[in-house]
């Protein structure tokens, strides 16, 4: 397969554009959910609606910290990868996978506390939003973890520093940071405010 310079540039550009478009699509999915939430919330005179109490912030805050840390470690993994630091590349990659999985555990705990406080999926719109939106996000985190596992060949010792993983790593990173930002917005609007 003959690859000239023009083609290489085109490929890189295409990958960037394609991924950006995909992120816009995902962004619209979550934006629609936030729009729905805003309409539900402003229709109500009080939020949480009568008869419900605010959810404890313990697990949502834990989730926020975990996903923030995972974004940081992903960044450090990328950085040490290009500085060809074998040990720290492997370390930060593994920690990212660990944090990403811990995020799902913390979500599981959140759902358990919701149930404990009587907020079942069928307990009205407040519970519907808390459950529905966190499910959608958690589903995407699942996809995100698969995406992170998709760059696993980059942590093979002989591959570290190789340019050919650059685009893939960058795109997976964008997706993961995006999920972090979405979670942060959910944390702010659904749990804190």
């Amino acid at each position, binding site marked *: 397969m003959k690859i000239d310079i023009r083609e290489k540039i085109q490929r890189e550009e*295409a990958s960037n554009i394609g991924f950006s478009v995909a992120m*816009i699509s995902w962004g619209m999915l979550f934006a629609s959910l936030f729009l*729905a939430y805003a309409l539900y919330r402003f229709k109500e005179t009080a939020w949480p609606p009568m008869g419900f109490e605010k959810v404890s912030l313990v697990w949502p805050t834990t989730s926020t910290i975990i996903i923030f840390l995972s974004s940081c470690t992903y960044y450090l993994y990328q950085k040490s990868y290009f500085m060809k630091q074998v040990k720290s590349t492997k370390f930060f990659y593994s920690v990212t996978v660990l944090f990403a999985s811990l995020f799902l555990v913390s979500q599981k705990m959140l759902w358990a506390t919701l149930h404990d406080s009587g907020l079942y999926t069928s307990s009205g*719109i407040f519970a519907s939003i808390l459950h529905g939106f966190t499910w959608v996000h958690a589903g995407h985190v699942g996809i995100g973890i698969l995406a992170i596992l998709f760059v696993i060949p980059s942590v093979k010792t002989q591959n570290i520093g190789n340019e050919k993983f650059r685009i893939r790593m960058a795109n997976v990173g964008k997706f993961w940071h995006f999920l972090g930002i979405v979670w942060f917005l959910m944390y702010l609007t659904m749990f804190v405010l």
Partner: protein
Amino acid sequence: MTYAHGKHAEPKTFLSKYIFSFDHKVIAKQFLWYGIFFLLIGGLMALMIRWTLAYPGEAFPVIGNWLFPETGGVIPPDTYSMLFTLHGTIMIFYAITPILIGAFGNYCIPLMIGARDMAFPTLNMLSFHLAALSGLILLSSLFFPLGGAAGGWTSYPTLSTLVGSPGIGQTLWCMAIFVLGASSTMGAVNYITTIISFRAPGMGYFDMPLTVWGLWLTAILNAIFIPVLGAGVMLLIFDRVFGTTFFLAGAAATSGTGDPILFQHVFWIFGHPEVYILILPAWGIVSDFLSFFARKPAFGAKATALAMTTISVLSTLVYGHHMFTTQMSPLLTQSFMTLTMTISIPSAILFANWLGTIYKGSIRFTSPMLFSLGVVFVFGLGGLTGLYLGTVSTDLYLHDTYFVVGHFHYTMAASVLLGGFAAIYFWFPKMFGRMMNETMAKVHFWGTMIGLNGVFFGMMVVGHAGMHRRLYNPFVYEFLQKLIPINTFITYSAFVMGFAQLPFLWNFFHSLVKGKVAESNPWEVGTLEWTLPSPPVNYNFEEIPVVQCGPHEFGNPNLPEGKDFQYQTEKLVEA
């Protein structure tokens, strides 16, 4: 993974060549078969609906007894609801979308911009297989207890919640739409990227054929708005499967209940752009064909492209005109009305440019041209009747009547369908290397044209007379009984239109094997795909072409004797 400019060895096995192909030309054909298959199913459903409206209580001819043995061949009321629901869903999402966007988007974009394939061939293949999966889910829903979805193609709650539609059919409908949405979004990512990154050297945006412009704008709208529908049907699935109450009002308590109207917002934020998602490729195709067969440069091609862009932008701001009767505040209804009316301006520019293109042209009445002129006519009617629905005062009367049905069939069904046929007749020689029969094509055109105007104009008349849509037997109401004859007329017209598709089917399949072998450029057109043999080889271009002029260089007086067009790869002839 293969990329647009990488050349790979030709696939050898049946599976890699026809089923799991990365080649955009093969994927285009897959979508074409898929679309034609569903077009036939959706068309049959339409005839069953029409039969019920013309002859309520009478057995459907020929296959009625086989399909509905327990009622002696009469279409039962619950089945009738399923029929109009699935007719709409199938025609919009499973017939028109795959034919115009799936098939011709895939086929034309790389060939017309001088690329060897789509930017992401694997994604492209996945897109078709997801569409196939979605079609299977939808059809399978018919075989479950209580049958398929019956809440209308818009699936408004509470009709579409468990309260209105028990059974698994509606859930499967939601899942099918979600999967299809994922497929279309993947396609959109591919189209947008390919057009931005892989245009041949020398091809600026305004050197692209207008077909590519239409497909590009469609892809952009798809990428932005399909996820909105995705979010809506996902919440609907949650309501139906997990017992959430997003769209259920008054079920739980006096405060903190869901809101059925919210689904309408989400649906139409997607739904109005969807109208343009469907029509934009047809507009692009027609804008090109009118120039190709009038042997004249497209009048104001740049303005046409910009008008299409303006319409795409405006189409994102007008969705509220579908909801005038939901007790919106008058401030909102008036804003939506004003914005809707603004769309007339770019539409008029587009329309005037079409007329300007054919004015004083040396028109060749080939089948693609006839169908394109058909689009101009029916789209004019469809667009004009839209004004009454975009105006609050008249919409309050016309809302949910057959006037709406007639209007959107003129725009979405008639225009897009005729545009799709124009595209099939035009690119068939390139796709399959054989010509279709022109005489048969003309029979097909006139049959379709007469039939569809009888159907859709008739619908507007009965709608204006007050007949509501979606009624199983409207004639139980005394004031509608005088509309029985005209409903019978509409049904006759529908059968004319239905039978007019037989010459098309015969022509299509007969020409596949027995048609006259096509030359590389039978229509004498200068866009890049016609510089290639029919059908083009694997990976299209041996050498990536260099583009030197626009797509509509016809009738240049400086051209040598006997030639009235030039290829995009040739330098513009000057005196």
